[in-house]
């Protein structure tokens, strides 16, 4: 197939409207008469509402309603945007009398103005029975404090749930004979690693408005990654039929998984349902941080064994995940901790992964770019770096010896075969570009700072195998232009453009001949949504099928008009013609003909799902400058060598990589999550939760080493999540190479390093 657009850096179709500040986001489109919605949030991590007095709040001029648990439906649901039946338990109510974390919603106020709503919040009087919270997730299982004692708690899937024991889920798998393999190892290390509940910190907070449309259907306009799942979740939560709900997704100001949960949608929707009025809720940054859908906090124990020659034979990995107050995405994120870390090593003769996800009274978790793989890869890659040091081996060499290769079966990855992988080329290029052999492990600069390097490898998936489903529809319009209708959600990543690039090449047309539209659940074809690194791979697959079908239809219709057998005719994207004759009809003419007289509307719609989830791979290398006096670490250079299969949009793939690495640098070094003893989150603003600015980003150098994935569109795999996985282990490795000290808890703050260096001096 000719490639005019695939593998080029086409400008995003919406780029110019974004850079000129056009009003295209949810908050820009709110109807003038919409009620302003505000939430009264729990000041306690665990409490029971004895009573609520809303009478004074209702007297505030402009207040239209004040809703409490007595006004809300009693059906439990999950806010996790997943295919039904969701693995996440149904453990939430819109407003619950039992409060399970600080910031849990206590009451909903809707008023004509924001000021009135804010004033009314202060007038609500709540009598709380304050209870002792369960905050330490390592003590959650079988704790006398039960986070979800309610009788109507429901788990739809068998994921090892036991709410009475605070277990959201539990699982394990074993490959090979662990004891036997460990006994053959010369070196066996056991290490524990900790990661925190990082905030996605997308620039646009959670934001939604809702109204009843002219047909009396509840219409919800929201910044969501999962419009079709949101429709079902709202149906569950509000106890109204799915058919009465319509979800519209305008432009999204970033998601990173945060908006794979239905976080803000439910509250204005309930107000609209009960008042009939349009209603608008935009979370503050503080609310987005205290009651969003962050990464799951995890503790991981790694036992790793290798022979003296550096062959890694066995890894035993245990992960404990803190779901917080609600189980959204808990049972599924934990799976990736094992599947997407152990599978990096083709040399493993035995491996085991055991996991438990527990409830506590901290904020509920969600989906965040990397989705468990990030945590698992931090632990396993750090352990590999530590065992390399123990063996006196260069950490790049131990990986070259052990890492997965094309053609290998990956037993820990659902038994899938690795059909596309250029990790070896990525590693060779990374060493060359970083000048690794010269820089490893460190050198001391004249100013006393230490320059050192560190390495990690990573993988992810491409969609959820046999679950994620995408449909697209393409129409040939009068005049010959195409409309591409998609149900996946461009959240800034550029998937609308990427899919148009594929369609333009499949249809041999100009990309400007394709207009893209998504997402409105009343008009767009079904798509599970944009998560799990699925849009390029899964929705792209649907584009390929749909274009093939449409080409045949155009050819058949052209041939019919020309009065010839389609077998004799060809369609070159511009015209249907019979070779060797002057019989020809243009695409534009066929488009007109299909409308005039309405002989035949030329449209195609295909769905796609993949039985496999081919992993993209990468190597990340960090060069840091460490000040041993203060412990300050600056990432001065980062080399990323990426195999995402065929690169569909060279610019967008590069920017995804750069963005993911900087987000990963934040996770590694700055982004702290601290609770006080009462369970209140302290890092609830950009003052306290420090995401990287451009001064912390350093230089990032990205190169692609495309393999060809046979099941992917044009040979493509995914890119979006993979790229956040290497910074934490690579930077931790560089810090160890600089100081000789291993840091196993994220973030690795300057003070942690400085104090450890001090302690080392005194030891």
């Amino acid at each position: 197939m000719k490639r005019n657009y695939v593998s080029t850096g086409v400008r995003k179709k919406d780029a110019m409207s974004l850079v000129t500040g056009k009003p295209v986001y949810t908050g820009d489109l709110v109807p003038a008469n919409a009620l302003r919605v505000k939430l009264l949030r729990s000041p306690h991590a665990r409490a029971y509402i004895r009573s609520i007095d809303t009478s004074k709040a209702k007297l505030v001029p402009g207040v239209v309603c004040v809703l409490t648990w007595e006004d809300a439906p009693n059906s439990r649901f999950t806010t996790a945007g997943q295919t039904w039946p969701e693995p996440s338990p149904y453990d939430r109510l819109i407003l619950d009398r039992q409060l399970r974390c600080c910031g849990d919603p206590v009451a909903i106020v809707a008023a004509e103005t924001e000021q009135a709503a804010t004033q009314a919040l202060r007038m609500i009087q709540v009598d709380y029975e304050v209870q002792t919270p369960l905050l330490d997730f390592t003590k959650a299982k079988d704790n006398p404090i039960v986070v979800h004692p309610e009788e109507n708690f429901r788990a739809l899937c068998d994921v090892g749930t036991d709410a009475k024991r605070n277990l959201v889920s539990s699982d394990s798998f074993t490959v090979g004979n662990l004891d036997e393999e460990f006994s053959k190892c010369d070196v066996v290390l056991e290490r524990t690693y900790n990661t925190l509940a990082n905030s996605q910190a997308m620039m646009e907070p959670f934001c939604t408005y809702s109204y009843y449309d002219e047909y009396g259907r509840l219409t919800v306009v929201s910044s969501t990654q999962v419009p079709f799942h949101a429709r079902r979740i709202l149906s569950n939560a509000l106890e109204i039929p799915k058919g009465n709900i319509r979800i519209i997704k305008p432009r999204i100001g970033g998601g990173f998984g945060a908006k794979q949960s239905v976080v803000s949608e439910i509250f204005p929707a309930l107000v609209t349902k009960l008042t009939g009025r349009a209603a608008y809720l935009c979370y503050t940054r503080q609310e987005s941080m205290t009651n969003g859908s962050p990464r799951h906090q995890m503790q991981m124990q790694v036992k790793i064994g290798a022979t003296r020659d550096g062959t890694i034979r066995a890894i035993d990995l245990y992960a404990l995940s803190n779901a917080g107050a609600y189980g959204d995405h808990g049972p599924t994120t934990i799976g990736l901790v094992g599947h997407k870390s152990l599978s990096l090593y083709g040399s493993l003769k035995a491996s085991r992964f055991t996991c438990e996800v527990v409830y506590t009274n901290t904020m509920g978790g969600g989906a965040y770019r990397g989705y468990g793989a990030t945590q698992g890869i931090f632990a396993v890659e750090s352990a590999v770096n530590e065992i390399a040091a123990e063996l006196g081996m260069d950490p790049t060499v131990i990986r070259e010896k052990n890492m997965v290769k094309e053609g290998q079966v990956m037993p820990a990855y659902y038994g899938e075969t690795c059909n596309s992988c250029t990790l070896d080329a990525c590693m060779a290029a990374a060493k060359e570009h970083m000048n690794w052999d010269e820089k490893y492990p460190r050198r001391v600069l004249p100013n006393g700072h230490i320059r050192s390097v560190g390495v990690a490898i990573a993988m992810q998936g491409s969609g959820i195998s046999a679950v994620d489903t995408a449909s697209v529809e393409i129409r040939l319009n009068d005049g010959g232009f195409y409309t591409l209708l998609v149900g996946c959600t461009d959240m800034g990543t550029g998937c609308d453009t990427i899919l148009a690039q594929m369609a333009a090449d499949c249809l041999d047309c100009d990309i400007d001949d394709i207009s893209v539209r998504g997402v409105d659940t009343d008009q767009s074809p079904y798509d599970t949504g944009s998560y799990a690194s699925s849009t390029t791979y899964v929705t792209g697959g649907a584009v390929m099928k749909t274009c093939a079908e449409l080409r045949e239809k155009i050819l058949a219709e052209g041939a019919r008009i020309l009065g010839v057998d389609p077998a004799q005719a060809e369609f070159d994207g511009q015209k249907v013609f019979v070779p060797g004759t002057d019989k020809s009809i243009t695409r534009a003419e066929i488009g007109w003909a299909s409308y005039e007289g309405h002989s035949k509307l030329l449209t195609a719609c295909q769905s796609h799902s993949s039985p496999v989830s081919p992993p993209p791979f990468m190597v990340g290398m960090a060069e840091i400058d460490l000040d041993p006096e203060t412990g300050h670490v600056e990432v001065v250079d980062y080399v990323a060598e990426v195999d995402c299969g065929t690169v569909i949009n060279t610019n967008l793939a590069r920017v995804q990589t750069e963005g993911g690495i900087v987000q990963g640098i934040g996770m590694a070094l700055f982004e702290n999550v601290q609770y006080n003893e009462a369970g209140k989150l302290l890092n609830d603003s950009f003052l306290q939760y420090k995401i990287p600015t451009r001064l912390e980003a350093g230089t990032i150098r990205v190169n692609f080493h495309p393999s060809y994935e046979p099941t992917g569109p044009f040979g493509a795999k995914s890119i979006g999540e993979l790229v956040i996985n290497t910074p934490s282990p690579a930077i931790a490795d560089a810090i160890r190479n600089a100081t000789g000290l291993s840091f196993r808890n994220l973030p690795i703050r300057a003070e942690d390093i400085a104090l450890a260096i001090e302690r080392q001096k005194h030891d």
Partner: protein
Amino acid sequence: MKLTLTLNGVRCTDEVQADTTLFTYLREKGCLSVKCGCETSNCGLCTVWLDEKPVLSCSVPALRADGKKVTTLEGLQDEAAEFGAYLADEGAEQCGYCSPGFIMNVLAMSRELTHPTEQEIQEYLAGNLCRCSGYQGQLRAIRKFLAAKGGCV
């Protein structure tokens, strides 16, 4: 209280509360390019110009703009498109939510600094957060934009 200012070249007189921020006022006036990303003056999304100087509109009382000139991206559409095209050609606008505030500051910088070094650029724009791009593509766009304007780095 009465507020009179020149907004994107148009003289406006409005009644505002003493505690109304310039951000809230501008959104109500339909300047929807101005975004809010935090409540703590950390993100730079709400950057506008007050008498040609960039300010965080979330931290400026609307009444401070009395008698002054306020400029938002709505008033700089040609310049926004000119620099924005460089950003778009890198794919670095990504979700675009931080773009208006960032571009307001880039345009202010290009007027204020004649031949900025890379360090000066990074420091000038340090208050404009972006969670998508990792900042690298933004810097590539700025370099190309300044080079084309003759204010190369």
